[in-house]
């Protein structure tokens, strides 16, 4: 999101909260979120994909809502309105090619109406058939989860993304030699997919409350959290939507402070640090150990200020419309151990993995009596961190980053256990406690900062060269 988009989002949020109440607030939030998903989508070299990809996101939202809601829910007036808003706006965006000299919502001219018509017909038929099956078979939900994971795998694996781009270019009679794995930059899909999987899993576990289409779709594509999260929970989000909300002066001030803080973090601190932060080019150019440490530190702070800045902006804008998005970062670099770091870094993502992978996986492992607890901890932590790494991208460096943190968490867990049993009275010595606390913070920060070497660079060989320079080898 650029400054213009952030500014427009703030203005829209203010207008919505001042002008509307109750259901109208939900409808307007949905309408702007639908427009935002097209507006925020970057231009792609594949023709009209800046229209097709957001449209597919919305189709997935409608499909997921239909298979997770009660049979016949689509007949309720509120849901018909929700559907009309989504469908009407998408149709209007497509039709804008005929009455606007230049595209304003999306980056390029939308596709021909006949193409959109065929797309809508096919997607509509698929949705109808899947919904019909879903009310007769519980396997549809599992199928939807698999489909979402499959899409994520394709988008996150450079080789598969490249193949997909080649396929689409061939379909358009374009030169396939110019295809690149970056051609399919589907805005916000990682977050959209995780929100949808959360809803689908909760439906499977019979703990999902009934949500209207407008509430559901607004939750999934809510414009402040579309690009960089946080990943909220559907039932909590819907509660905020249903609350009678009137924007007070205090709330406006608090939201304004939060947005300003976010803008400062992102556009002043993070962007300035970005000039000297670790990247592929600097990694090869920097020759001295001292400078290498500086660019690694710069990256560690840049990624924090960038990401937490975006989160602050999202939380602030959401606050303006009465939505209290969950926190995502709580001073993670001041935590004395890795477990606490991960409890305070990208918290909503780690909570998601804890709820939908780590806990069920551990419960499943407990069924095997011959697995000792420490092996269980090792497998659980390494597997979870590996998946978190893969969520960022299916590349060797993200695997290494996941393993780095997985083994780090395991070693820290065993160390803490050892210290607790060996020195039970350690907590009584306050001086020693303070020293350990400071030492822990420094150690944790450096462990995390070194982990960023895998995260920031594209090649593992380059990461290895950076490590060698960092330690003067």
């Amino acid at each position, binding site marked *: 999101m650029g400054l213009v988009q952030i500014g427009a989002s703030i203005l829209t949020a203010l207008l919505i909260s001042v002008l509307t109440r109750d259901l109208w607030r939900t409808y307007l939030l949905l309408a702007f979120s639908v427009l935002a998903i097209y507006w925020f989508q970057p*231009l*792609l070299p594949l*023709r009209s994909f800046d229209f097709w990809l957001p449209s597919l996101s919305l189709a997935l939202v409608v499909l997921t809502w239909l298979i997770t809601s009660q049979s016949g829910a689509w007949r309720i007036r509120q849901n018909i309105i929700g559907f009309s808003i989504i469908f009407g706006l998408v149709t209007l965006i497509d039709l804008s090619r005929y009455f606007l000299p230049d595209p304003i919502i999306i980056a390029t001219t939308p596709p*021909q109406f006949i193409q959109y018509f065929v797309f809508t017909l096919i997607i509509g038929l698929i949705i109808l058939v899947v919904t019909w099956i879903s009310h007769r078979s519980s396997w549809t939900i599992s199928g939807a989860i698999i489909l979402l994971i499959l899409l994520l795998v394709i988008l996150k694996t450079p080789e598969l993304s490249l193949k997909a781009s080649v396929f689409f270019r061939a379909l358009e009679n*374009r030169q396939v030699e110019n295809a690149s794995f970056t051609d399919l930059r589907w805005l916000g899909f990682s977050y959209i997919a995780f929100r949808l999987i959360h809803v689908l899993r909760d439906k499977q576990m019979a703990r999902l409350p009934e949500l209207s289409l407008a509430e559901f779709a607004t939750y999934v594509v809510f414009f402040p959290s579309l690009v960089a999260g946080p990943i909220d929970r559907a039932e909590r989000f819907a509660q905020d939507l249903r609350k009678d909300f009137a924007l007070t002066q205090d709330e406006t001030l608090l939201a304004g402070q939060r947005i300003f803080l976010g803008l400062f973090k992102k556009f002043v601190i993070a962007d300035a640090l970005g000039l000297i932060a670790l990247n592929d080019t600097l990694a090869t150019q920097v020759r001295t150990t001292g400078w290498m440490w500086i660019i690694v530190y710069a990256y560690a702070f840049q990624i924090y200020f960038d990401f937490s800045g975006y989160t602050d902006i999202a939380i602030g804008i959401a606050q303006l419309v009465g939505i209290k998005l969950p926190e995502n970062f709580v001073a993670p670099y001041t935590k004395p151990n890795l477990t606490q770091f991960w409890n305070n870094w990208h918290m909503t993502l780690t909570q998601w993995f804890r709820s939908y992978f780590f806990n069920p996986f551990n419960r499943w492992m407990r069924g095997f009596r011959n697995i000792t607890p420490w092996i269980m901890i090792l497998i659980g932590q390494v597997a979870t961190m590996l998946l978190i790494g893969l969520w960022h991208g299916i590349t060797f460096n993200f695997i290494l980053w996941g393993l780095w943190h997985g083994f780090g968490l395991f070693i820290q867990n065993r160390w803490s256990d050892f210290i607790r049993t060996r020195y039970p009275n350690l907590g009584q010595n306050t001086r020693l406690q303070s020293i350990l606390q400071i030492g822990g913070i420094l150690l944790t920060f450096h462990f995390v900062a070194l982990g960023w070497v895998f995260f920031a660079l594209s090649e593992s060989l380059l990461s290895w060269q950076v490590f060698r320079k960092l330690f003067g080898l």
Partner: protein
Amino acid sequence: MRKVLVILLMAFVSALLLSACGSQNKNAPAKAVEDYLNALVEKNSDRLTTLSCSDWEDDALLELDSFQAVTTKLDGMACQQSGTDGDTALVLCKGKIIATYNNEDQELDLSVRTYQVVQQNGDWLVCGTR
């Protein structure tokens, strides 16, 4: 429910009619060239390739690469269709591209070229120059 379906159907039929009228836009080839030139000076390779036909894609990127080291802007650009050659629309442009390097301007006259524009799947795409 029936009412909603009727409204949706009517809206779609109207949209189809609207799209049929809209696609007859006579300035579309010239507009395609203007967009192409804008993408070129903005060095937006993604946009440039979506505005080029398959055969011209590589040439378009090559042309863009030639501008990488300089700052570019358009001056007085205006394009107009000058004729047709079979299915190809011919477009002439006025104005110039100003390429600046080290405070030194170089002007590239746009009128020396005739752009060949073809229609594919309803979109006009730049497909070469004469």
